[in-house]
């Protein structure tokens, strides 16, 4: 019998797992995909927002501001990458400048501590590529960016270190309430028993809730966001996250420097019915290009290396929906977590544990270890450090991904790590091999062979990502 089953291993589920793992409880995290962090967490803007945008007196506002501060602590404990970019919200005329003033007031009321204005001259000094007609900017120094799925991995790795169990390829297909516990059915086969269920199932959270409840108090309204990724060569094009003024549709199309030097352009925000149709559209991509001209000039569209789309788990409820079920006690909804979900995630986990689980009288573990060891990023080390590492492990000498400068040792670590993975995309998410200019055109075949060697599998069994997605499908008639 588990104390807690957490459904979903996105940024929210993994933060909850970590938060709970400091207590004397038995935790299981379930994930329906072949890897953690595979939906919203792997396809978003990567911004740790300051908290200027959410409506006052909402959970979104409160948990965004708290979450932003918690990332500073997570950086120290989990060794996650944070890039302190700061952000500008731009205005083009007197009317928009008045809206900046309103935003300023809102930010103050939300508890954003650092906030200031730059006039045109100051703004252009700091960001020479701002669009020429920008007249004033609101500066939010506490805005930063991270590498979202590494944060989720770090939380889950740390939770696992502290005793949490994790099962992937495990879709919840039924939930039944017994007297004082739940029966959670996985893949129509296995039944797991748990005292409490925490649903952090992202876009699927209403479906998961309907497995148990007749009336679910919210509906998920999926909202797609499309993006372009610029190569690392674009590094320095802008230093800050650039926001237009928010509208009723959201925060608009942004320019976002990334921790590894890339720049994201996006997102769009369009309602769609399908929860997992992660398709890019011609209209969406064109809209990004059109909208960005109000933010910046000289945008290096020639450095686009990839497009992607993510689905926000927006809901019919006008805020995050973090509540215990009205009908079934000990079933907890953590739903409707759209933007600023990444920022808020650690605060959501604390809020859940400190407020909703208060009556569970959780006892702290004596041996809880909040530290997730630092990952080696070989190319960032200086020459002497690199020499020393190669001496210990010559596989650091074998450069596999030329674009992102990733070595064989880092790929092996990604395969065998605490949350290891044996797929091409799983390795890309962990070690960044294939994230660069040639998008794996050169290194994929090497990565595939390293995975096969390290996991004792034939090369035609190595999957791209999901189960049964082998890259190589049939042997040739004559072997080379």
């Amino acid at each position, binding site marked *: 019998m588990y104390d807690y089953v957490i459904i979903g291993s996105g940024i929210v589920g993994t933060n909850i797992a970590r938060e709970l793992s400091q207590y004397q409880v038995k935790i299981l995290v379930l994930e329906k995909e072949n890897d953690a962090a595979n939906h919203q967490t792997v396809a978003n803007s990567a911004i740790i927002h300051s908290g200027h945008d959410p409506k006052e007196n909402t959970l979104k506002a409160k948990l965004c501001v708290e979450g932003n501060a918690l990332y500073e602590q997570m950086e120290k404990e989990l060794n996650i990458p944070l890039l302190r970019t700061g952000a500008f919200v731009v205005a083009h005329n007197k009317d928009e400048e008045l809206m900046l003033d309103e935003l300023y007031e809102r930010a103050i009321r939300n508890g954003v501590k650092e906030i200031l204005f730059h006039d045109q001259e100051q703004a252009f000094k700091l960001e020479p590529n701002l669009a020429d007609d920008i007249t004033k900017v609101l500066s939010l120094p506490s805005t930063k960016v991270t590498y979202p799925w590494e944060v989720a991995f770090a939380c889950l790795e740390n939770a696992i270190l502290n005793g949490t169990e994790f099962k992937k390829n495990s879709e919840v297909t039924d939930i039944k309430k017994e007297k004082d516990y739940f029966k959670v059915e996985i893949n129509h086969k296995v039944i797991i028993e748990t005292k409490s269920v925490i649903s952090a199932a992202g876009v699927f959270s209403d479906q998961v809730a309907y497995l148990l409840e007749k009336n679910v108090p919210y509906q998920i309204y999926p909202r797609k966001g499309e993006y*372009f*990724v610029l190569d690392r*060569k674009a590094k320095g094009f802008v230093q800050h996250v650039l926001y237009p003024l928010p509208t009723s549709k959201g925060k608009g199309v942004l320019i976002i420097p990334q921790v590894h030097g890339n720049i994201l352009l996006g997102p769009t925000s369009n309602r769609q019915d399908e929860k*997992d*149709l*992660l*398709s*890019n*559209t*011609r209209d969406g*991509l064109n809209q990004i290009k059109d909208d960005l001209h109000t933010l910046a000039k000289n945008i290096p569209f020639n450095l*686009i*290396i*990839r*497009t*992607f789309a993510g689905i926000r788990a927006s809901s019919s409820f006008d805020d995050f929906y973090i509540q215990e079920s009205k009908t079934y006690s000990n079933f907890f909804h953590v739903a409707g977590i759209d933007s600023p979900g990444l920022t808020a995630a650690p605060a959501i986990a604390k809020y859940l544990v400190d407020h909703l689980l208060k009556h569970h009288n959780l006892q702290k573990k004596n041996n809880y270890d909040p530290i997730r060891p630092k990952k080696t990023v070989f190319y960032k080390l200086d*020459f002497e450090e*690199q*020499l020393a590492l*190669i*001496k210990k492990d*010559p*596989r650091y*000498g*074998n*450069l596999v991904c*030329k*674009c992102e*400068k990733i070595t*064989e040792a880092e790929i092996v670590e990604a395969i065998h790590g605490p949350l290891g993975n044996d797929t091409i995309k799983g390795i890309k998410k962990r070690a960044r091999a294939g994230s660069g*200019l*040639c*998008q794996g*055109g*050169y290194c*994929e*075949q090497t990565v595939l062979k390293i995975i096969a060697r390290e996991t004792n599998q034939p*090369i*035609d069994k190595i*999957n*791209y*990502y*999901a189960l*049964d*997605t082998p*890259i*190589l*499908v*049939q*042997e*040739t*008639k*004559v*072997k*080379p």
Partner: protein
Amino acid sequence: MKKDLVIIGGGAAGLAAALSANHPDIHILVIEREKALGGILNQCIHNGFGLHVFKEELTGPEYASRYMDEFLKMNIEFLLDTTVVDVKKNDDFELTVSSFENGLFKINAKAVILSSGCYERTRGSIAIPGERPKGIMPAGSAQRYLNMDGYLVGKRIFILGSGDIGLIMARRMTLEGAKVLGVAEIMPYSNGLTRNIVQCLNDFDIPLYLSHTVTNVKGKDRLEQITIQEVDSQFNPIENTEKNFDVDTLLLSVGLVPDISLFDSLDFKRDAVTKSAVVNQFYETSVSGLFICGNALHVHDLADYVSVESEKAGKSAQKYILNSKEPSKQIHPIEFNSNIRYVVPQLIDFDQFKDSIDLSFRVSKKMDSAIFKIMQNGQVISTKRAKNLAPAEMEKINLKSVTLVDQSPISLILEEVIL
């Protein structure tokens, strides 16, 4: 470690450059990242190589082995499984090099030839709409899996782009039992060699959809279907021209880009069209002692032309080292009209112009009949007639020093002849 000349990349370009640069007084080192010399030729098991250089038809590996045999006889030093990870230039070049066997070390070199080839444009760079399942891959990657590892990446194939690798792969995968349903090309003409259209598509009844592109991709985990649409002259899809194909693989043959990122830290003049360096007739960049040749300089249609060009680059590097590193002269750009996309070399140093220079270039559109004129100081100094010009095929014209009038700029003019 100190060397006179380091050649980065031991494929068609690097080997030819090494052979011609070889000299008793010059210590050469060739660095190759793969386990064998020969570069991309090793995976090109089709024939069609060597017609110009050897006057016979060879496969890629056969063509490579001709150069390799010669190379090995000369006892030129080379490192396999070794990657150059960083480069600095003071008086000499300082290369940081890495391998499993030898770890990380530095090499000083008087001159460098960059013969690192090119990489394939990807789905992301052309922003194909749709989902992102497994099964979408550059044609060259699929070629490598097929010819080097012995595996097909799919059984029902569609190919986007009529570049030569895509065409070659259409035939190759068909012969291996896969079904190739078609090739879509966004331009109104093919981007591959005519002989490949005939031998790889027509001979196997594989349809070529000109003025078409892929406008949607379906499949969550595995590719299930692609949609192609006809495009107008602005490349916008035309409504109601959708055709769906149920496939498990979409191969991309949508262009090659010179792979010179390694040298991004050095400040040299670049050509926006070739996406590589600007060079003079010695294939020397604006960084003295840095030579570039082969597909790292501009994408060639034939390996033979890579060899010819790289031999010249090798000779130039040899001279540079023997003449104690005379600084690169980057003067007198070659001008050209809009019927021409680019010309390599982009610059001429008249003071050292002896004999002749091959000007390599690509035309901007298909022309049945045309005339080239080399002009200087308002005079036509040379002309050449040409038939069946296409952007897919590299053109060459020879500029002889004796025809020069003076040292005023050279321009290359291409005029279409309407018959």
